């Protein structure tokens, strides 16, 4: 197998705007197996209580020829979907410490695995390929010493590419995109058509609400055709969740709080079996 090259397209480039749609055109030629995207932000000088960088990432996208969104996921969707796909989360330093740096990474994979010679992104097939990051840091609150520092949202982009001399002739590429977003109602069925232009190799369903147990907002999932005369998926959320989480390699989340008494924190886990908190700096008396 050919050794992939890691081409650094951007390296921690701080953005002057705290709210923007960042756009980066990719080269006109090249054969990519995947693109890694790293996002950083610096906490306030005092703390960053209640701050989760994923909240600021409205969408991370790969756009072909201006309007063909082949990857298009929110920060929460991307983080959780990758965890379910790979069995482990991508790198995420989640910290609320004073002046700490939060950092999260996402992988846009275009094949079945890194180095796949049959499926990947052939840049020469498109007039334009652009990475877009639609972000709004104010979704984490206004910049302040107790939240985040203005002008520190920084982006890294790294391409896993085949060397020029051994570019494969890809048959196609994999794309992963959100095709519907909304909010649950108190009752009734939500029915959506599946996209039908391309073969589908996997489906994802996200439903998140802070302080609500999973399988409460959505209880059942059905996927089929001909008005569900044929059923491909049919079952309870709670059963699917147990089966799917059984396959994961990592089922824990570790992070650092800047905590007060009775502080609540909204994590990325549910059905929590164990929660432990350990002080970094021991205070044996009243603080």
């Amino acid at each position: 197998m050919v050794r992939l090259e890691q081409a650094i397209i951007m390296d921690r480039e701080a953005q002057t705007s705290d709210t923007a749609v960042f756009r980066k055109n990719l080269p006109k030629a090249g054969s990519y197996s995947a693109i890694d995207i790293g996002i950083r932000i610096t906490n306030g000088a005092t703390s960053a209580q209640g701050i989760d960088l994923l909240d600021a990432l409205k969408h991370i996208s790969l756009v072909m020829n201006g309007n063909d969104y082949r990857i298009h996921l929110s920060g929460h969707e991307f983080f959780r979907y990758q965890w379910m796909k790979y069995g482990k989360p991508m790198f995420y330093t989640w910290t609320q410490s004073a002046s700490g740096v939060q950092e999260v990474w996402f992988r846009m994979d275009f094949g079945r695995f890194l180095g796949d010679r049959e499926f990947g992104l052939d840049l020469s097939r498109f007039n334009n390929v652009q990475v877009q990051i639609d972000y709004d840091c104010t979704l984490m609150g206004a910049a302040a010493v107790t939240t985040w520092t203005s002008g520190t949202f920084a982006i890294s982009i790294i391409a896993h590419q085949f060397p020029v001399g051994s570019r494969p002739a890809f048959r196609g590429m994999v794309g992963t995109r959100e095709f519907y977003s909304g909010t649950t109602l108190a009752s009734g069925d939500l029915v959506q058509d599946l996209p039908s232009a391309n073969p589908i190799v996997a489906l994802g369903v996200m439903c998140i609400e802070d302080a609500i147990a999973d399988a409460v907002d959505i209880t059942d999932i059905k996927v089929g055709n001909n008005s569900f005369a044929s059923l491909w998926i049919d079952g309870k959320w709670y059963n699917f969740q147990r089966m799917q989480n059984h396959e994961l390699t990592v089922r824990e989340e570790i992070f650092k709080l800047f905590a007060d008494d009775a502080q609540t924190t909204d994590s990325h886990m549910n059905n929590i079996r164990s929660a432990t908190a350990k002080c970094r700096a021991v205070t044996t008396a009243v603080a």
Partner: protein
Amino acid sequence: MTTAGAYTHPDVTTIAGNRFTIQGHTLTTAVSAATVAAAVMSDKEVDVTLIGDVGGMLRFPIADPEDFSGALLPADLRTAEIKLTQAAAGGTIGLIVEELYGY
């Protein structure tokens, strides 16, 4: 509840590369439940570990991950739908597809 028992608390004081340093602190003062309740924690760094399920996300592999056989084809998808049974308001929904694009 009142206790006079000693309680030793390990504290990671420094982290340098792969090395971390632990300092033990033994708490020996007799305390009562009322005393404990009055001890306010404010702006303290706390390491948290949670074990559970990935929250709010299900992924349904449809095709064989090795050769993509079994993928739902456009002919199958012409009338394909997904139905979610809702039972409570306020959940943020995202429906995601992983698709194969040919060249």
